[in-house]
């Protein structure tokens, strides 16, 4: 079990989905039970990972590696290789937890076509876990794309009134980004071949060769490649100009779909930045203007997302736009390129999964009772649903970053990490921090204002007088999220310890390559040399690695 | 990329490309005539609510393209 723990975690939901195929679709209760059991099983089998991972948290490299390169499609050099480090470990735990929570929350929300719903949901779960586990770039890409299909169906079949539009928009947007990434992957693949003579998609191999692109092909080519990845991830995150699919998808998706979308899917974008963009293209980030514009986009996302949230009349749309703002903090922390900022960013991703996941559940519960999400329809809800109002208050506070709750730790670490950086793309760290801080204030504004309009005062709408409070099942969905929120808020040290090794390693990788400008200059001189034009690029760079390494 | 420059070869190659450029216009005569015929036919189809005029247009276009092609060649080979 120890050696195959990742495969077991990965395929438990899929086994559930296949099992569900054989249950007659009229038998809704059985389907619900089986789906919930397998979702819980997915969480339970991931729990042994916690002590096992904890024991080796400071050791370098990927842990629990399974499979060898080339074992899947030897003729092109793709393999079924899984492995995790601290960053993916936290995201995997978040995924299994939220997967269970959201499947549990769908018990009464989904009434028609129950069987397909749970099948697609469990398939989606496997797809997302695969993205975080894959150590082979090709495998990663397959999971990355395949996961779009169940999400598309979840939005399109069980969504709101504009579900067709939202589903297609979601699919097309994310696909448009990822096909360009495919071209980028293929380029890295050939470059890896020309350097080492081996065709391979193995991530560890690409970590060695990809940073060379800057010196082998020049800054322009490297920047274009960086952008081909950047678009894929930025659309997924979503960063500011690419975010337009998000409100549509969130508003139309069923509640559980929104939870997973916000909680896990968006993290795939930031995970992509951390796992691929930073270690592959360190020189693009440390030289040139790319980093400056990424930072600017992050700031715009923070402010713009918060401002648009303020204006919303629909609760779900408000939460959706708040995601844009929160994810802006995450990208800010990533591209600050300091250990503190990066670990804060990962932690904030977990926090956002917990808080925003909970916020979508909160909106979903009201929607299930009243079938409207208009803020003006509500008022004084705390009088009728006190437990609900309390949980909501805690989650709102966590989302806006109040001390003692998880959001504070994440945001504070990001801002601190950014602040302490002396130079980020030509500007001191405090310059960027100053722009980001209003986002925190605005978050408090839109969330508290929302709370005041919905929960405080007297019940103005007679339809709200008879609403019943949370059922035990609904409380159960919130309990793990509340525990996590308090745990991270009060004692985040274990999380930082888990993140310490991978984050330090990452920052060291990025800065090591930047610190040797003479290597870049040498390579540039070699490129311009007399024999450079006559010899094909491939054979020129085959000779390079030996010189470079020794 | 293209094979290494060889002085004798490159002169030949240049003449070749020059000629190629002259004849490359021929490459477009044929499809263009066809497409024009097709578009005219399709427009007529839409206007007259028929379904076969585009076909006549294409055939006419092909014939016209052919005639033009042969005429050009005959003129050049004289």
């Amino acid at each position: 079990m120890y050696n195959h723990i990742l495969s077991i975690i990965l395929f438990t939901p899929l086994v559930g989905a296949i099992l569900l195929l054989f249950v007659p679709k009229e038998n809704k209760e059985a389907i619900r039970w089986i789906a919930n059991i397998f979702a819980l099983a997915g969480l339970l089998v991931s729990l042994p990972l916690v002590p096992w991972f904890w024991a080796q948290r400071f050791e370098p490299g990927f842990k629990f590696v399974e499979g060898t390169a080339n074992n899947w499609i030897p003729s092109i050099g793709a393999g079924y290789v899984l492995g995790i480090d601290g960053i993916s470990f936290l995201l995997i735990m978040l995924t299994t937890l939220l997967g269970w929570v959201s499947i549990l929350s769908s018990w009464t929300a989904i009434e028609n076509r129950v069987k397909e719903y749970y099948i697609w949901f469990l398939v989606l779960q496997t797809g997302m876990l695969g993205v975080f586990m894959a150590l082979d770039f090709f495998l990663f890409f397959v999971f990355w794309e395949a996961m779009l299909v169940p999400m598309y169906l979840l939005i399109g079949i069980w969504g709101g009134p504009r579900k067709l539009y939202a589903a297609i928009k979601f699919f097309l947007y994310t696909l448009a980004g990822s096909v360009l990434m495919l071209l980028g992957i293929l380029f890295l693949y050939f470059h890896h071949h020309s350097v080492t003579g081996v065709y391979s998609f193995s991530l560890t191999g690409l970590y060695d060769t990809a940073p060379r692109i800057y010196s082998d092909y020049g800054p322009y080519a490297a920047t274009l490649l960086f952008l081909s990845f950047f678009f894929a991830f930025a659309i997924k995150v979503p960063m500011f100009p690419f975010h337009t699919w998000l409100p549509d998808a969130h508003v139309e998706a069923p509640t559980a779909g929104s939870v997973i979308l916000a909680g896990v899917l968006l993290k795939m974008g930031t995970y992509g930045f951390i796992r691929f963009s930073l270690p592959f293209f360190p020189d693009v980030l440390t030289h040139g203007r790319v980093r400056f514009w990424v930072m600017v986009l992050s700031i715009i996302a923070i402010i713009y997302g918060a401002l648009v949230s303020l204006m919303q009349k629909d609760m779900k749309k408000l939460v959706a736009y708040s995601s844009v703002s929160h994810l802006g903090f995450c990208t800010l922390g990533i591209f600050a390129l300091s250990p503190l900022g990066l670990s804060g960013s990962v932690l904030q991703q977990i926090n956002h999964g917990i808080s925003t996941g909970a916020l979508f559940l909160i909106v979903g519960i009201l929607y299930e009772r009243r079938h409207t999400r208009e803020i003006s329809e509500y008022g004084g809800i705390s009088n009728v649903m006190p437990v609900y109002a309390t949980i909501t208050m805690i989650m709102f506070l966590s989302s806006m970053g109040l001390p003692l709750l998880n959001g504070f730790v994440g945001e504070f670490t990001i801002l601190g990490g950014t602040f302490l950086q002396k130079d980020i793309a030509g500007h001191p760290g405090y310059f960027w921090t100053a722009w980001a801080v209003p986002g925190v204030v605005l978050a408090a504004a839109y969330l508290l204002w929302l709370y005041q309009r919905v929960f405080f005062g007297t019940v103005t709408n007679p339809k709200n007088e008879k609403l019943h409070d949370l059922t035990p099942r609904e409380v159960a969905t919130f309990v793990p999220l509340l525990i996590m929120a308090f745990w991270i808020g009060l004692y985040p040290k274990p999380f930082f310890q888990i993140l310490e090794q991978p984050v330090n390693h990452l920052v060291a990788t990025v800065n090591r390559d930047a610190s040797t400008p003479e290597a870049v200059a040498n390579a540039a001189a070699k490129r311009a040399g007399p024999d450079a034009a006559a010899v094909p690029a491939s054979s020129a760079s085959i000779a390079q690695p030996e010189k470079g390494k020794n | 990329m293209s094979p290494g420059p060889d002085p004798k070869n490159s002169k030949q190659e240049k003449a070749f490309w020059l000629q190629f450029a002259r004849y490359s216009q021929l490459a477009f005569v044929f499809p263009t005539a066809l497409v024009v015929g097709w578009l005219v036919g399709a427009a007529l189809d839409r206007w007259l609510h028929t379904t076969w005029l585009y076909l006549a247009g294409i055939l006419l276009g092909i014939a016209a393209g052919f005639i033009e092609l042969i005429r050009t060649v005959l003129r050049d080979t004289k």
Partner: protein
Amino acid sequence: MGPLAPFSTTDYLLALPITLLALFALGILLIDLMLPKEQKWANAVTALIGVGFSAAAIWNPFRPGILTYLTVSGLAGHAAMMNTMIVDRFAIYFWYLFLAGTAVAILMSVRYLEIENEDHGEYYALMLLSVAGMMCMAAGYDIVLIFIGLELMAISTYVLVGFLRRDRRSNEAALKYLLLGAFSSGIFAYGLSLFYGLAGSTNLRVIAVQVNSLMQKSDMKPLLVIALLTTITGLLFKIAAIPFHQWAPDAYEGAPTCITGFMSVAVKAAGWAMLMRILLWGLYPMRPLWLPVLVFVSIATMTGANFAALTQTNTKRLLAYSSIAHVGYMLLGLIAGTAAEIHFDGLKGILIYLLVYTFMNLGAFGVITSLRHRNIIGDELDDLNGLYSRAPVEAVLMLVFMLSLAGIPPLAGFWGKYFIFLSLIETGHYALAALGVLYSVFGLYYYLKIANAMFMREAEKGEERLPVSYAMRTALGITGFATLFIGIMPNTFIEMVNWAWGIAKNPAVAKLIR
């Protein structure tokens, strides 16, 4: 190729798969006369047996000489019939591909013909004859044989398109197809005749040598350009590349749905085999000339077809435009490489593409065919509405086929695109690669339109379940399984294509498909 040898047993053995198909076609015509009306399905069985025999004849254990020839000498094949035919790995690969596509198409036809009340033996006979023609096209080493094969295939297909005699749409489609097909064959023959005049031979190898020496002369003969242009126009007509595509949507829409499926895979694959045979074996020295033409045509094809497909409301027409768009992607595989040399990954990509396309497109047409029952024709997009509630298995399979056509991993269709774009990136055609992938996103939109109709719209015509014959179930099972299996475990198939191009590394796989 050596001196002309008189016909020997080897010649006939090499041509056996073709001969067998023709014999079975004639046999079906005879047996059909004796069958009572309610047992016409036996014709389909005979046709399947014929396909099986032909496939077995390709894998012929009594040809040890050829076996060593093929395994030892890479791309080279065995010439037969006085050098008019060449049985090499390329030809064998395509032969199997045609037979696989035909077998599935036969399975799809049985019930459809019963419903249409057109269950005649000629249908299957014509199908087999057209496959015999395709085999000649793939194995032709002489432009005369290639042209005869082409005409045998084309004429059989004209009749098959118009096979629903009482249906006006079918007749009209056949007539249009015939007119344009005949014209394009004429242009093609014109070009071939010029090459004969220039080279003094109809043999592709002699033509290649002669063209090569003609290309070296500084006064390049305009005739050479004209010959190339007309030949290539004819070829592009046959694979329906824009701007030579006009026959395709009409013919696809009007033909019996199972024949549409057959045309979109087997006939198209044959067109590709012929195109590659002529451009790579015969006119390869002229690559600098045909390369720009292909670039232009490929961009035009991807653009035109993808835009035209967006507005279609008829599923068959939509798939017709989608199949034109796929031609555009495949053409990119021939473009990959430099002006002087073609890149092998692109060629691999085309073969893989044709393989996966055979299964996924036939599957899609299979689902549409299964919708035809009683008074519902079932080829409008709206007929698919709520298909999931009526026929869940078919709907899910159709979703798989659509996503595969759109190129979403891990489905088979992804691998075709993968190798095409791989070759483009490898040879530095970044702009074309970017254009190609963006158009494939574009393509996803109209495939999703079908998925939307099936899963997310309500059925208008009741919740009645569709009766599906066992033959159709088998056909859908095969295509669905192949689409998934090739997608998830592509290694064997990649090795297979490597073998076809003579670059196999794994002898076990090569032996398997030999």
